[in-house]
Structures are given as structure tokens and as C-alpha cells.
């Protein structure tokens, strides 16, 4: 008699077997003619430049974090939507169930959006460009000289 964990083990073993079978079959069937272009990480024709360990602007991470937050929120919304429309529950509670679960989900989304508001208020959503450096060098040629030349030959 297998216990519950035994089934899980069987499942894992099955998954590995399946994967090995499919990949092995593909390996046997497909033509194999590699060239430089095919071996690039992006096959879109762009050539990769430099190492992959360059530092990105930290703001990418902040935005990515906020994005992930709202992605995960969706995961909670799916099961909720199933329970939300459960007929039996609605009948049992005389229709109160819908309002209750609706309110609960709004509280949840409200708290999440508070996080967004906080990040917004902190200025994490503004994409600040680096300040442009002005060269302190002062040219002896007056600046309107060029404009005059442009005017003259335009």
C-alpha cells in the first residue's frame, strides 16, 4: 500500500521519465546543423554585447517588485472568484455571502494599492534621468557668433 507521499514520488518519477522521453525523441528525430547565429542567446539577429553581469539601474528592480506584487495578487483573485459565485454558500447566507466576500477582496486590494501609493509618494515610480553635466569650460568665441553664421548662410 502506497502512502500519500508514495504517490507524489511516483508523480515526480513519472515527470522525469516523460521529460526524458520527449527530449530524447526530439534528439533522435530533429536535424542537427548548428551555426554561430543559431547559437546566440537571442535569435532575433541582435548581437549580444559585453558580459551579462553588468549593473542595471536599481529602479528596474523596484518597478519589477511592484509588478510582481500585482501579479501575485491575481493568483489570489482566481480561487476567490470561484468561491465568490458558489450558489450553495449564497443560499445558505441569504445572499450576504456575496457582499461579505466582495468587501474582503476590496480590503485586500486596498491594502495592496496602499503599497503602490506609498511607492508612488516616495517617488519610486518617477524615472529620474541623470543630471546633464554642463562643461564649465568658457569659450573665448562669443556664443552668438555661430548663430550669426547660421543666420547668414540659411
Amino acid at each position, binding site marked *: 500500500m502506497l*502512502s*500519500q*507521499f508514495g504517490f507524489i514520488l511516483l508523480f515526480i518519477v513519472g515527470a522525469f521519465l516523460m521529460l526524458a522521453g520527449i527530449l530524447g525523441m526530439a534528439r533522435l528525430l530533429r536535424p542537427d546543423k548548428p551555426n554561430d547565429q543559431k547559437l546566440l542567446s537571442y535569435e532575433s539577429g541582435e548581437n549580444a554585447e559585453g558580459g551579462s553581469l553588468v549593473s542595471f539601474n536599481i529602479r528596474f528592480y523596484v518597478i519589477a517588485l511592484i509588478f510582481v506584487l500585482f501579479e501575485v495578487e491575481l493568483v489570489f483573485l482566481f480561487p476567490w472568484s470561484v468561491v465568490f459565485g458558489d450558489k450553495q454558500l449564497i443560499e445558505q447566507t441569504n445572499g450576504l455571502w456575496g457582499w461579505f466576500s466582495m468587501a474582503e477582496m476590496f480590503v485586500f486590494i486596498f*491594502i495592496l494599492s*496602499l503599497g503602490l501609493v*506609498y511607492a508612488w*509618494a*516616495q517617488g519610486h515610480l518617477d524615472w529620474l534621468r541623470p543630471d546633464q553635466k554642463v562643461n564649465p569650460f568658457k569659450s573665448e568665441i562669443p556664443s552668438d557668433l555661430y548663430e550669426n553664421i547660421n543666420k547668414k548662410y540659411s
Partner: protein
Amino acid sequence: MYPILFLSFSGLITLFLGFFQEGKWVKPATILFLAIASISAFIDWNKPGAYFFNMLQVNNFNLLLSLVILITAILIVAISDNFKEIEYAHSAEYYAIMQFSLVGAIMMTNFQSLIMLFLGVEILSVSMYVLTGTDKRNLRGNEAAIKYFLLGAFATGILLFGIAMIYGGVGAFEIDAISGTLASNQAQSLFLYIGLVMLLIGLLFKLAAAPFHFWTPDVYEGAPTIFTLFMATIVKTAVVFALYRILHQSFQNMHLSWSYILAGCIALSLIIGNLSAVKQISFKRMLAFSSISHAGFLLLGLLHVSKTADKSLLFYSVSYLLASTSAFGVLLALKNERTENGRSNENISVFKGLATRSPFLSAVLIISMLSLAGIPLTGGFWSKFYVLTDAANDQFFYLIVLALLLTAVGVYYYFKPIITVFEKSDIQEAITINPIFKIIFVLTTLGTLVLGLFPDLLYGMI
């Protein structure tokens, strides 16, 4: 339950309070919120029951634990100072995270279902990872945060795996159900044993008990002192009572299996903690090792399933909280006295000449050290007494002798700061102390002495 709900919302409010008037209301508001949360705990007083679909259990003892945690938090917040020394500090965030972490701590002490325990551990740990790394420009702080995060996440993984295994073995998450199943069945499945061991490993890691203590010295030293204090007091208390609920209220029938694991951890924690502390120069590092040895003592209180274990552990925790708050608090009060490269000096030598510069601070420090060392007249003595008499039986008596002999080693290093206090210093000017610090110090020191003279006041009340 009410403190949990209240703190979750007050944390959010605190976050946004940071935008008004440069966040000067954040600290008073946090203290107010914590006070309201403590009062809200009394709504459930004398009304034992379960909440959240039997995931959280409320009774008077659990409420008392929540109160101890909240009141300690009030003390700690009171001696914090808006984090002026940290560059680009977002103090509102830190106070908010502290409130969130308290939610986790209370969940860990009041849990009924192992899922709630896991949630509590995660909330508390993630908050602590963040707080450890708040001083972004401090390399040691960064190292500490990364170390704590990586090792801690690993330990949480093991903990979760253990919970899953226990579910596999018993088919339930509720600790009542687990203890019921264990009482009726004699032969247990192998998964249960593996699960229990993994659960223990995860929690012992959070408690900083040897051999899962490797993160402790670096993290204690690297984190800002106020969060080190937070870790040494609140996290420890929460974890010990989580362990208490698991070992004494659900797995008490498997006492034979876990008592040997615990005995090994106790012996190692006591030996490693006490012996390593001897050579430390940094005060925080010394206290980190001392906290390992105190973890050993707390586990000693868990070793034997007895009726008084909960009381003894609570007494131990309270006296340890009071003494640690004094000790770290004195270090915080001296933060600006001697600095090196813009950072405050946290070595024991910072106390040099304190006896002449500020007799008040030196008295506070001396009493806290005596209490940590377990010398009579302070709460530390009776807390050791209660824990040891609970653990005393023929089987593990050698552990008690070991604990007491290593206490003598403890006296050796706890007295180093005391001797330094009386050394002569080149600086003579008196130290001015913030009045809030004064109030807190008077409270903690008097508390330590009262516990030392009349232990029945607390022990008889529980």
C-alpha cells in the same frame, strides 16, 4: 487576536505618517499604537477560545506573552532615536516594519495550527532581515543582512518541509490534533520523526542555539544596536514559546525522542556560547555569544515536560529582556561618546571611566551584567534557579552541573565591562542622558532588582 489586527493596520498608518512634518510624529505614534495594542489584548482576557478557523488560540497565558512582547517593544521603541545616524534613513518604514514583525511574534506565541506558526516565523524573519540591513553604508551591516537572509531563508525552508512531513505523518496541522493522535497511537510513522527534527532545526536556528548559531555573532554585531536588542529579546521570546507549544503541548508523548536532541543542543550552546564570549573585544559580539548561552538555558527549561515549565520560561524571558534592554541601552546612550570613522565605538573599552563620568549609567550597566551572569539579588539568579529546578532529574543532572560550571565562565566575561567601568579614562566630563533613557533605565533596573528580591511577585502571578 486583536493586537494582531490592530498592529497590521497601525503599521500601514505609520508608513504614511512618515510623509507629514518630516516624520516627527512617527515615534510617538508608534508608542501610542503599541500601547493601544497592549490594551486591546485585554478584550480577550478570561475568554479563552480559538480564532481564524481554529488557527489561533487565545488564553490568558498566551495573552500574557503577547503583553510581554508588546511592552518590551514599547521600551525598545522608546530608546530608539529616529535613526538619525543612518544615511538616507526612512524611519517611518523601520517603525512600521517593527510593528509588522510584532504581528509575527504574537502569531508565533499564540498559534494553534502549524501554518500559523510558519506565517508568524516568516513575517518576523523577513522583517528582521530588512531591519538588519537598514544601515546601508555600513559594510558589516550589509554582510550581516545577507548572511542572515540566506541562512534564515534556508532554515525557514527546512521548517516548512518539517511541517509538511508532520502533516504527512499525522494528517493534521492543529497542535491539539497532533497531540491527540500521538496519545492514541503507539507506533509512529517515520515521517513524523523526520518532520519533528526538521521543525526543531528551523526553530533552533531562529533561537540561535548551537549548532545552528553561526549567524549570530556577525548579525548581532552588524545590525544597528536597536535592532540587535530587538532580536535578542523579542525574537528569542517568541521562538522559545513556539518551541514550548510544539514540544510540550503537541509532542509531549514523544518526549523520549526529542529530549536527547535538546540535551545535545543545550550542552553545545552552553559550551560554545560561554567559551567563545570570553575572548571578545566588541560588546555586542560578547552579548551575541552570551545570547547563545542563554538560548541553552532557555532550552534547559524545555527539557523536562513539567507543569511549571511555562512559568519558568516566562520568568526567564522577562528577566532576560530587562537585563538586555539595560545593557544594550547603555551602549546606545554612549553612542556619541567615542567614534571611529564616524561610527560609534561598540567595544567594551567604550565604558572606560564610566564610574566617574556617570554613576547612574554605570549602576545600570553593572546591575544588568550581574543579572545576565545570574548573581543573586537580580532576576537573573532566580530565572536560572527556576529553569534548573525544572530540568533537574537524574537523567540529565550532568547538564545542570555543566550549566553551573559554565556560569562561572560567564561571570568571567560579564565582569569585563564592570572592571572597565572602574578604569581611569582620559575623558572626565559628565555624560548627559536623555530623560526618556533615564525613565527606561530606572524601570528596567528596578524591575531586575525587584525580580531578584521578590520573585514570587511575577512567578506567583502567572
